[in-house]
């Protein structure tokens, strides 16, 4: 795995929490939203997204519920919990600090 791939994998929980901070979504919808917000830069496979969603749910940062969708099949909607919001806030701060420091260091 390249460094960039590792960085992308590490940032998956933060991206997912951020996307779900405003509204509940199902897996496919999260994928499309991520693609839209990052203008196609972040493309995620199901193999990366779904285990991340399940892990976040297991950690209590997300909760899920099955709801009837437009099609025949039900959809599993994920929404952020209060614990998830706190985690998002903290990770966001850390991430911003990391980027700022990284940029400063590289440009020095």
């Amino acid at each position, binding site marked *: 795995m390249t460094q960039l791939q590792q960085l992308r994998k590490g940032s998956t929980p933060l991206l997912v929490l951020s996307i779900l901070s405003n509204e509940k979504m*199902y897996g*496919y919808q999260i994928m*499309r939203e991520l693609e839209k917000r990052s203008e196609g830069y972040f493309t995620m496979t199901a193999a990366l997204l*779904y285990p*991340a969603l*399940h892990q976040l749910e297991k950690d209590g940062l997300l909760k899920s519920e099955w709801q009837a969708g437009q*099609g025949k099949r039900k959809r599993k909607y994920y929404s952020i919990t209060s614990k998830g919001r706190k985690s998002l806030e903290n990770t966001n701060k850390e991430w911003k600090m990391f980027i700022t420091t990284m940029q400063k260091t590289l440009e020095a």
Partner: protein
Amino acid sequence: MTQEYIQSLRNNLKDFPPEEQEILLDELMSHIESGEDDPIMGKNKEERIKKLMSELGNPQDLSKGFKSIYRNNRFIDFLLIVIPYLLYPFLNVMYSNLMTTYNWVDVRLDILIHLPLVVVGLWRKSTLVTLFWVSTLVIQIFAMLISAQGYYGNLQTIIWLVIAFTLITLLGNIVWHHRYDALIIVFALLPLTMLIVGIVLAIINSSADLSSMPQVIDKLILDIYINFAGFGSGYLPFYGTLITISLFVLATNHNVRWIALGFYGLVIGLSRHHLNLFDEIQGLMAPPIYLVYAILPLVLVLLVWRLSQSKAQTQI
């Protein structure tokens, strides 16, 4: 193409309980359905499926991801079963030595020492640890009460019965929760079933027909019984249970776990844990009783395995 993906994912998730498997597969099938209907994915269905497949990634990677979340505690489960189990012989020696001075140091202490393991199993949400210790303790309590024959008095007997029935309720609750997982149901109910079978066989012992079974098999079964099984503390029950349970807990392959469970059934049958109790009270039983008891658990495991396999095939 999408059907092949789901089938491949199903195969990779084989060691998950069927109920969990279906939930995970449902979510992925819903993902596929959303993609197939989304015009963003392509002009026609073929184009959409092609893009969808590349987005889904490798089913093996996906199942690995799920396994790392839901199946990462097996070794700790294994230790929580095996270490206390290995301590049994040492505790038994200790009880025997202490009993000469303190008459309250008997099987009751053993049960009380092992009760917290049920709590640990529940706290860790470990089905295997909880089930193993619940079924072990329920059998121990009933064995103790039957062999004591009123020695502990009414109040204590009632307290022990309350504990036993609380544990049975817990066991029933776990079994209900895993009602679609034949492997867990057999693992949970086999020891208790054999206790009940033991009681029933002991009751019908007097009417057993001694001449109906071949002498060679009778002799073989009794030889195994006398040489390996002993009266409750022989090599076969101890090491047999240890090896088969270790394999059952640690193996990730569904079929290997069934084989381990089959041998576990064989060990239960040949060691005749729950018949020993009645042997001690009313003497050796008729050989056909032992023969039925030895073969029955293995037959039960094989039967449920076969049934669950044919059910899985009809689902596919």
